């Protein structure tokens, strides 16, 4: 380091950290100072530097400085000759350019694994990363019961949210968890506003939501039903549905008001803030949660993954979206056998995350999720008392099934895969995909008892890689 810069560094270091008050010279005095100062700078060999008025009329250093040391040297000269009351040491980007800063110079040394000679700071002991520097944020929503009595509960959506929130928190995320009655429209909006105000640019924002998924309009954009959302239309099986399976038939039968819209509440809110957004949704038809980007009118036509990935490039900041099901499939959930974090996940009960499923064949089947499924019968034709009786893994779990052990099929398998695969989203999705489809198909058959009503390929979770091909939630 040059002696001059060392001296100047010392000047800065010893400058008390409070404001420096300056007296303003007159315009004539300013012109005299400019002439004299520029002469001093030229004679000192700082050829690119000059003193000039900034747009606010203050005298500041301007020009091109080859190095930061040169900039400091010029400041020292001006301080010595005129003092800060006449030439202000303010750095003004509009006027001064420092070609090589210590950051730029020392990065080269850092990449070589060498100590940087361009500043004392660079030879200090490396600092440990503290939580203050964490830049991972998450909004986690889980709604299992609703204010509107006509909306059936979604057993386990709250547990999904808690499990996902715990996973993110353990991996360095600052989380906001809104469960059941906390997850009102106002609270969700407030949480996003609060996040917006504190989230630094370049941060990562994960939005997870588990609840019912239902269209918010006639074009089929799907919103996540919040605690105080309400139904706009009664559920009717739509005869226009071209899909022979029950999923698509029911898609448009219940529209909701005040649902959580990923586009409106997340993408648009953070549009002018540079953050990386990851969305994970466990809800029926959640593959169509960003449908408006496709411009499609027919709600029964579901865009392909590649179509979605293409159009979603226009969604600012959106990096990846993982959804429990495609835009024409229900998402299923049920009671888990065993602990959530067990390697082997098995579902012993079922219900879907569709808003309402009042059909002639299954009147009350979706009103509960988990322990009992009213209106279904076991293999012997007797009324079912416990889901464990109709479980594909009957006998593994029975009375031990608790409220806490209910989960969405997608969340359970996806979270398990994330834990196994170091948080890698795409890899975990690929791994969980066949299991989610197999189990969801089984649960559908368990409820509807008819292969004609259940899609043979399951609920079809979707992954849209918009700007990143892979990302890890466990990345530090």
């Amino acid at each position, binding site marked *: 380091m040059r002696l001059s810069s060392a001296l100047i*560094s010392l000047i*800065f*270091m010893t*400058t008390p*950290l*409070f*404001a*420096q*008050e*300056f007296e*303003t010279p007159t315009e004539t005095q300013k012109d005299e100072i400019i002439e004299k100062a520029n002469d001093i700078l030229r004679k000192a060999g700082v050829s690119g530097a000059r003193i000039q008025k900034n747009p606010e009329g*203050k005298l500041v250093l301007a020009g091109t400085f080859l190095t*930061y040391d040169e900039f*400091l040297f010029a400041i020292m000269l001006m301080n010595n000759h005129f003092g*800060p009351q006449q030439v*202000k*040491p*303010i*750095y*003004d*980007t*509009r006027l001064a*350019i420092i*070609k*090589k*800063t*210590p*950051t*730029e*110079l*020392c*990065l*080269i040394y*850092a*990449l*070589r694994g060498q100590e*940087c000679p*361009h*500043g*004392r*700071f*660079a*030879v*200090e002991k*490396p*600092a*440990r*990363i503290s939580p*203050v*520097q964490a*830049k991972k944020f998450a909004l986690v929503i889980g709604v299992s019961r609703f204010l509107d009595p006509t909306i059936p509960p979604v057993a386990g959506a709250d547990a999904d949210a808690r499990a996902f929130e715990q996973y993110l928190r353990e991996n360095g995320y600052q989380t906001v968890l809104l469960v059941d009655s906390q997850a009102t429209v106002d609270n969700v909006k407030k949480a996003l506003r609060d996040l917006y*105000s504190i989230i*630094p*640019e*370049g*941060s990562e924002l994960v939005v997870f939501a588990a609840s019912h998924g239902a269209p918010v309009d006639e074009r089929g954009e799907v919103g996540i039903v919040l605690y105080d959302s309400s139904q706009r239309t009664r559920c009717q099986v739509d005869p226009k549905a071209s899909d022979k399976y029950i999923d698509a038939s029911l898609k448009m039968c219940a529209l909701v008001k005040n649902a959580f819209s990923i586009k409106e509440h997340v993408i648009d809110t953070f549009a002018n803030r*540079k953050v990386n957004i990851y969305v994970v949704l466990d809800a029926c038809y959640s593959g169509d949660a960003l449908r408006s980007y496709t411009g499609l009118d027919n709600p029964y036509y579901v865009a392909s993954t590649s179509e979605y990935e293409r159009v979603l490039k226009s969604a600012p900041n959106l990096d990846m979206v993982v959804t429990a099901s495609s835009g024409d499939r229900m998402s299923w959930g049920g009671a888990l056998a065993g602990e959530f974090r067990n390697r082997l996940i098995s579902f012993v009960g079922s219900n879907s995350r569709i808003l309402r499923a009042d059909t002639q064949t299954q009147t009350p089947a979706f009103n509960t999720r988990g322990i009992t499924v009213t209106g279904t019968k076991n293999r012997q034709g007797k009324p079912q008392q416990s889901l464990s009786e109709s479980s594909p893994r009957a006998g593994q779990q029975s009375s031990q099934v608790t409220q806490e052990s209910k989960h969405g099929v997608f969340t359970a398998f996806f979270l398990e895969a994330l834990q196994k695969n170091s948080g890698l989203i795409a890899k975990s999705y690929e791994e969980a995909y066949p299991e989610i489809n197999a189990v969801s198909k089984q649960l559908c058959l368990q409820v509807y008892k008819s292969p004609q009503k259940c899609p043979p390929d399951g609920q079809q979770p979707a992954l849209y890689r918009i*700007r990143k091909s892979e990302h890890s939630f466990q990345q*530090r």
Partner: protein
Amino acid sequence: MLKKVLIGSLGLALLSHAQATKSCEEMLDSSPKSRLTIDTAKNVAVGALVGGAIGAMLDESNRVRGGIIGGILGALGGTAISILQNESRFMENYDKAAKRYGYSPSMGEFIAIETVSPKNALNMGEYANLIVKVVVLTPEGSRGDSAYPVTIRSYLKQRDYLLPLGSENYYFQNGTTPLVYNIPVCNLFKPGEYSIVFEGIAFGKRVSNEVVFRVN
């Protein structure tokens, strides 16, 4: 003719390879860093086209000459517009910054660091243009004429620690001042994600923010 095309292509290929594998020192020496000239390509192109067309139209005696001169002037105009746009995009006076942060004088002295990387994925031979916005807000507000000393430190984020890079000292006024860093993506970079943490120290407070870019 074919021979000329082949030789020309080979020359271009060698030139582009040489650019891609330039040493870090060479790239740093030839850094195009200037005022906030990021994202200028579009304005420069539009300026050059419009200027060229107008120049060709006006210079009736020699339309090619008119087009070239008009194009150059148009490109310069486009650059100037970009710089002004960027300045209004990244700089803020006290009122604007205070409003954005919901700051009130009762909160005392305030400092924040924001980082912007206009381009997330970079190829060898390119420069990562990083902008660090330093927000300084004090109870004095827009009334006073004060400047506040702020230390900016930078770190390269490694797996579990921060490797110090540089420490710089500046005086800033109330409001938001952007600092521009041109990081040469030179031959020392390996493909992968890089993260630089910028820390601002003032008023006895430390704030930090991180900027991430990917090298292809």
